[in-house]
C-alpha cells in the first residue's frame, strides 16, 4: 500500500474479539495503533530495535512483536493483546501462574511475556525448561532473572494438562 505523507488508510481489525474500523497513517506501527487508537495500553513499548518483546501480541494466533508490524498489515486480521486473555473476573491459567510463582517484579515485561507464554503453550505439549527458555528468548525481563518466569510457564503448562 503506497501512500502520500499525511494520507490515511481505512483498516478493519478484530482486536480481542471486537471489530474496529479505523483510519490510520500507513506508517503507524501496530503497537501505537493499539495503545493510542484503541487505548489498549497493556501492550508496552520497551525498545526501538525489536529486541525486547514488551510489545508482543498474537496476530491470527501467531506471536508478533507489534512494534515491527504496521497497523495496516493487521487489516482484516485478528489480534489478541494482554487485555484479551482474561475476562474481568477470571485470570487465564498463565496469568494465575505468573502471580503464584512471583514471575514479575516491575511488571513492564509481563504483558509481552504472558502473551508469548500463551503462544508457546498453545499446543499443550510438554516442554523442558531449556525449551521454555529458548521460546521466550525474544522477551527481555530486566528484573526477575527469568527463573520464576520459567517456573510459572512450566507450572501453567502442567495446569493445562500438557
Amino acid at each position, binding site marked *: 500500500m503506497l501512500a502520500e505523507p*499525511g494520507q490515511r488508510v481505512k483498516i478493519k481489525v478484530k482486536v480481542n474479539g471486537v471489530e474496529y474500523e479505523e483510519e490510520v*497513517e500507513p*506508517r*503507524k506501527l501496530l503497537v*501505537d495503533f493499539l*495503545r493510542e487508537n484503541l*487505548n*489498549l*495500553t*497493556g*501492550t*508496552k*513499548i*520497551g*525498545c*526501538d*530495535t*525489536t*529486541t*525486547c518483546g*514488551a510489545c508482543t501480541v498474537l496476530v491470527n494466533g501467531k506471536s508478533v512483536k507489534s512494534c515491527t508490524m504496521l497497523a495496516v498489515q493487521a487489516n482484516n486480521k485478528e489480534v489478541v*493483546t*494482554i*487485555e484479551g*486473555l*482474561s475476562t474481568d473476573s477470571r*485470570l487465564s491459567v498463565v*496469568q*494465575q501462574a*505468573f*502471580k*503464584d510463582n*512471583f514471575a*514479575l*517484579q*516491575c*511488571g*513492564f*515485561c*509481563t*504483558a509481552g511475556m*504472558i502473551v508469548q507464554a500463551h503462544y508457546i503453550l498453545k499446543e499443550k505439549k510438554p516442554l523442558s525448561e531449556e525449551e*521454555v*527458555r*529458548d521460546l*521466550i*528468548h*525474544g*522477551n*527481555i*525481563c*530486566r*528484573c*526477575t*532473572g*527469568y*527463573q*520464576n*518466569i*520459567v517456573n510459572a510457564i512450566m507450572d501453567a503448562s502442567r495446569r493445562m494438562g500438557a
Partner: protein
Amino acid sequence: MSYSGKSVKRLYDDKFVTGRSTYVDDIKTNALYAGFVRSNMAHGKIKAINVDDAMKMNGVVAVFTGNELNQIIKGGIGPWTTYIDPRPWKIPLWRFAQGETKYNGEPVAMVIASDKYTAEDAVKAINVEIEPLDAVIGMDEAKQDKVLVHKELGTNFGFVGDFNAGDADKALSSADRKVEVEIANNRLIPSPMEPRGIISQYDGVNLTIWYSTQIPHFARSEFSRIFGLPESRIRVVMPDVGGGFGSKAHIIPEELAVIAASMRLGKAVRWTATRTEEMMATNSRHNVFKGEIGFKNDGTLVAIKGTLDVELGAYLTYTEGLQPTIIPPMIPGPYRVRDLAIKSRAIYTNTIPITMYRGASRPEATFIIERIISTVADELGMDDVEVRLRNLVREDQMPYTNPFGLKYDTGDYPTLLKEGVRVMEYQKMKEWAAEERKKGKKVGVGLAYYLEICGFGPYEFSETRVTDDGSVIVSIGGTPHGQGTETAIAQLVADELQIPIERIKITWGDSEAVPAGTGTYGSRTLAIAGSAAISSSRQVLEKMKRVAARSMKADVEEIDYKNGEFVHKKDGRKMTWNEVAKEAYSGREPGLSASVMLEGDVTFPYGVHMAVVEVDDYGIARVKEYRAYDDIGRVINPALAEGQVHGGGTQAVGQALYELAIINENGQLAVTYADYYVPTAVEAPKFKSYFAEKYHPSAYLTKSKGVGEASLIVGPAAIVRALEDATGKRFNKTPVTPEDILK
C-alpha cells in the same frame, strides 16, 4: 496469625498480569509531545539551528533551544546534597545546551508537536550547525588537562580526595610479598524495561509532573530549586514504574526541558524516551583502580595503595558524586586490612554523563577487593576459602569499625563463609569442574564474598491511617518500583495490628499524598520504610486503645488488644476493631492516624555467592548456575528476597560477560539495544538462593538489612573467578569478552 517470614503473594499483581498497569506512557492526557534534536559531536560550538522547515510542518507547535529554555530553567542539575558534600567538587552549570555542546547525544533543540510521529518528523527536519572543538574522550587523555571539557573549571578533575588509614607505605615495605594490580569496571547501562518518561502540566500556578522516578520528593525539591517555584506549587506523581536500578534517581536536561516547555506554553507536554534515548540518558559505572597490595606468606592482606579513577562524563549528574567517595571506604570490605592509601579522582570527559546503577559503589569496591583477595590466593597457591577465612573480620571483633570509620553492625563473617561453602556445595562443584576439565570441557566454579552497606538514612516517613470502616492505609516514603516491598510492608503492618493483610493498602509515590519521603534505592526500603510503618502502626494502635477506653469509660491501661479485639481486662467487655474505628470517626476525634519520621542508619548485609561457568570454542561464556548464601538479617518475605537475588544475579551475568556501553572515538555510544546484550532467559543461570541459618539482625524494628543489590555487588567477582577457574587465565575487568577469553 503471622505474615512475616512467609512468602506471601504480592498484593498488586493483578493489574500487571492483565495489562491494567499505568506507567507514565499509559496515562491519557491532552498533552503535546516533545522530541529532541541531538548533537552528533562530542564537543562543539553551536553555530546555527535552522528550524524553518520544521516550523512549517503540520502539527508542530514550537521549537525551543537553550536560549529560551534556560530562561525558565534557572538552576542547573546539581549533586544529591543529601549524600554528597559539594564543597570539594568542581561543578559546571548543567542545564540545556546553550552555545556549546559537551557530549555526543546531548540535546541541543526541542520540538513540541501534536504527537510523537510528528515530533520525530520535525526533529529530522531541523538542521543544526556545530563547529567542532577539541574533545577528550578517554580518562587517560582527560587527566592530562590539555583539552578541557569545561574551560571555566580550569581542570578536568571534578574531585580529588585522599582516603588514608594507617600507614600503607610502612605496611607495604614490611610485607612478605607485593603485587601490582589494575582492576576496572567498564561503562554500563542499567536498562530498566520501561524507558524514562515524564508528563508536565502547568496551569499558570501549579505544576503537576507525572514522572517515572525512584525519588518523587527529592525530584520535587530539585524542580523547586531549578525552576524557582515553591514546593507547595509542585506535585510529583510516580505512577507504576517499570524498573529503575538507580537510573531513575537521576534528572536529565530533557526532563527539565519538558517542564520548561509546559510552563512556557501553559499546556501539558509529554515525553517518553525511546530505548536509544534511554541508553544515552543513563550510562553508569566506569572506574579503574591501579595500585599495589602487600601481604604475608600466610595469606594475610596487610596493605592496599593505589589510585581510583572514576569517570564522570561531561557533567556531574545528581548521583555520580557518590562513587568516588563511597568506593574507597568500602574497599576493605569484610576484611581486616587496616593500612590503606587510596587516592580517588573523578574526571570529566566529553562523553555521556554517568549516573548510578544498582549497588552504586559497592559493586566496584567489591570487585576491587575480591580481585585483590583472589590475587593473594593465586600468588600463594592458597585456596579461595582459606585465604578469605584468614582475612575476614571475626565475630569477636563485632561491631567492627573499619579503617575509614564505617561501623559494621552485626554479623559472623567466617561462619557464614563456612556455612555457605557447605550449603552451596562449593567443594563438590569444584571437584566436578576439575573432572570435566580433564575431559576437555571448559567449565569452572568461583566464589566471592561481599559486605554491603545499606539502609541509608537520613530518614523515612510513614503514616498509618485507619478509615471509618476499619481498613488501613499506610503511606510510605519509600517508593518501590518492582521489588514488591509494599507487600512485605503490608505483612509487617498486618502483624503489628493483628488484622488480615487484605484490609491493608500501601500507598506511595505522590508528593502531595505522602508528606515526605526519601525514596527507594540502596536496598533501604524494607528496613527503613518498613520500620517506619511498624512504628506509625504502633502509634495508631495506641490511639485506638484510647478510643476504646473512652468509649468503655475505662482507663487506657485497662484495655488489652489482641487479634482485632479491644478487651477490658477486668470485666471482659469487648469492642471490635471496626467498632473502635467507627467510634473514632463519630465526631469526638478527627479520625485515626499517626505518622512518624524515622531516622535511619546504615546496616551491613553480607554473604557469599558462587557461579558455575562454561565457555565454548568461540570464547562465549555462559553462567550455568548461580548460588547465593546471604545474611540479610530477618527475612520478611523469602520469595521477594529471592527475587532480588535472581534479578541482581542476572544483571551480574550481564556486567561480567556481555554488557558494555562502547563509546567510540567520536564520543558516540556505539551500541544499540540489539548489541548491548542484556541477558535473555537463555543467558540467565539457574538460581539457588539461601539465607543464613542464623541471621544477624539490624538495629531496625524489622531486624532486616537489605538484599536488593547483593548479587550485582558480588556476582561479577564470583563469575569472573569462575571464568578464571574454567580457562586458567587472569581477568581484572568487566565485562570479560570472548576476545579476552581467546586472547
